[in-house]
């Protein structure tokens, strides 16, 4: 147990912290570089530097003054919020039935719900296009709210069912003895206990709807109805060779910063929500 042992221990610790630093740098660097780029304009954009050297808000003013980006931002907020509210409303009652009431075919129903959440979106694209056309909501935010139900609803039902299943029976018993109906049990007994789970699933569903691209690309066709991901994907300059990188990075930073904050604030809850569906299965 002399110097060699300490050296080995030291190398191990050094390697470990090197790995830690590598993980953090790789995870954060692209976002950092996007922020760095978003503050560069003109020829500065094409000078590669690793630390901030110039500072200009021109890209941000351009994003908000040219084109329909503010409108796209509003569309995204509206679509994602309404999608989440509808999914949670439908999911809470369904999750109660699936987790607290024993009935025939419950296992099969849960299987169908899990299967729907694994659907490739492309498989329903043609049929959804037809339904959306028939309903007359093509190229409106409602087309997106309608179609996003396909991935938000199974997910919220699944997570809320696993959560409700673990709530103790005693609180429900007491309510039943007092003569409470299932509706009263959900709204008065379970809802107050479920706020953490509702916030988590709501947030995850919000992120899913906020980031969705395929449906948004297909079911909207004008600048005013697009959501932010599509708007960013289609941002282009005067010609194919003039991609406005500064403006794209500014728009990217604007849509990502709120998400990053939400995720960092709720990180513990998000991690438990993400793993609830998976690991317990």
């Amino acid at each position: 147990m002399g110097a060699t042992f300490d050296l080995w221990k030291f190398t191990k610790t050094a390697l470990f912290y090197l790995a830690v630093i590598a993980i953090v740098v790789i995870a954060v660097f692209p976002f950092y570089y996007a922020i760095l780029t978003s503050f560069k304009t003109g020829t500065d954009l094409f000078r590669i530097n690793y630390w901030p050297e110039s500072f200009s808000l021109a890209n941000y003013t351009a994003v908000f003054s040219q084109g329909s980006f503010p409108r796209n931002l509003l569309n995204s907020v509206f679509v994602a919020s309404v999608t989440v509210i509808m999914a949670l409303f439908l999911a809470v009652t369904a999750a109660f039935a699936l987790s607290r009431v024993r009935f025939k075919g419950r296992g099969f129903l849960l299987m169908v719900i899990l299967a729907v959440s694994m659907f490739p979106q492309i498989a329903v694209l043609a049929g959804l296009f037809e339904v959306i056309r028939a309903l007359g909501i093509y190229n409106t935010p409602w087309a997106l709210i309608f179609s996003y139900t396909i991935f938000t609803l199974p997910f919220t039902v699944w997570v809320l069912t696993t959560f409700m299943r673990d709530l103790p029976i005693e609180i429900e018993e007491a309510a039943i003895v007092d003569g409470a109906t299932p509706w009263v049990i959900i709204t008065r007994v379970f809802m107050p206990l479920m706020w953490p789970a509702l916030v988590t699933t709501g947030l995850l569903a919000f992120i899913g709807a906020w980031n969705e691209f395929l449906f948004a690309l297909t079911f909207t066709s004008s600048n005013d109805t697009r959501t932010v991901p599509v708007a960013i994907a289609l941002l282009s300059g005067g010609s194919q060779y003039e991609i406005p990188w500064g403006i794209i990075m500014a728009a990217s930073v604007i849509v990502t910063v709120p998400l990053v904050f939400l995720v960092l604030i709720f990180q513990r809850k998000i991690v438990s929500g993400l793993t609830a569906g998976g690991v317990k299965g």
Partner: protein
Amino acid sequence: MVTDVLTASVPAAGRKTRSELSQQRLRAARWFLVPMLVALSVVAGWPLARSIYFSFTDASLNDLYGAEFIGFGNYLRWTVLDSGVVRYRGTLADPAWWNAVWNTMRFAVLSVSIEAVLGMLVALVLNAEFRGRGIVRAAILIPWAIPTIVSAKMWAWMLNDQFGILNDLGMRLGLLSQKVAWTASADTAMTAVLIVDIWKTTPFMALLILAGLQMIPKDIYEAADIDGVHPVKQFFKITLPLVRPALMVAIIFRILDALRIFDLIYVLTPNSAATKTMSVISRENLFDFDNFAYGSAQSTLLFLIIAILTILYIWLGKVRFDGGDR
């Protein structure tokens, strides 16, 4: 793992009221499930059935209803020429489709296996006790939180052939001898897609594996330490077998996700035959080339592949669907 939860029966109540109560609960349950079931059949069941139906017709984007049933023509049909040569048509005889199938499979296998290894490493790091662990956990959530389109654009800029920071970094470190057109060149387009996907989804993998790691009781390792078992051996003999269920679930979720990849490839390497996947080629036929029925056939084939894998997963993974009665 999950304690048994009593469901319909309530021991405190009497026998008669108990059955009345459970009747009432059953009725309520039915009404609670109806809205969800209606919603799911309207947004998932019916459109899926229609998509499959379209794949057997000659529907076009502007004429969905005048379509005629043509059987398996979009999948495979053949004509015998006068010379006696048989000519095959349809998706299953289309080299572009098989190229997309190959791209999708290659992408899914490569990305998921690399993500599993890296995710395991990150999870092992996060499972260790050290100062600043919270910061690392927060940092790895950032790639996960960034919208796919945004990460595709961010990386497209970093991978830019002339002004990209990665070419600059690679040349400074002597890893690259010349600037590489990562996203444009057919040789490197798939690598570019893999880099971005691995960066974005390794955190998800790591968090799922970490949850599995945290369920392993610490005293197993203490016992192994006392017996002088080498840490590497500990990993392969203790950690890996015990974390396997969580790892398998994570891998299968990721495979199903990777097979349907669309947005990253659509934005990062548009129109590149080297990366075009089943979802991309199918949407292209559906809406860009006005081969609506042909695209439907392709999307139906992708659905079949994913459906078979899902059934295998449920069957092999023995996922329990019995609600509270574990």
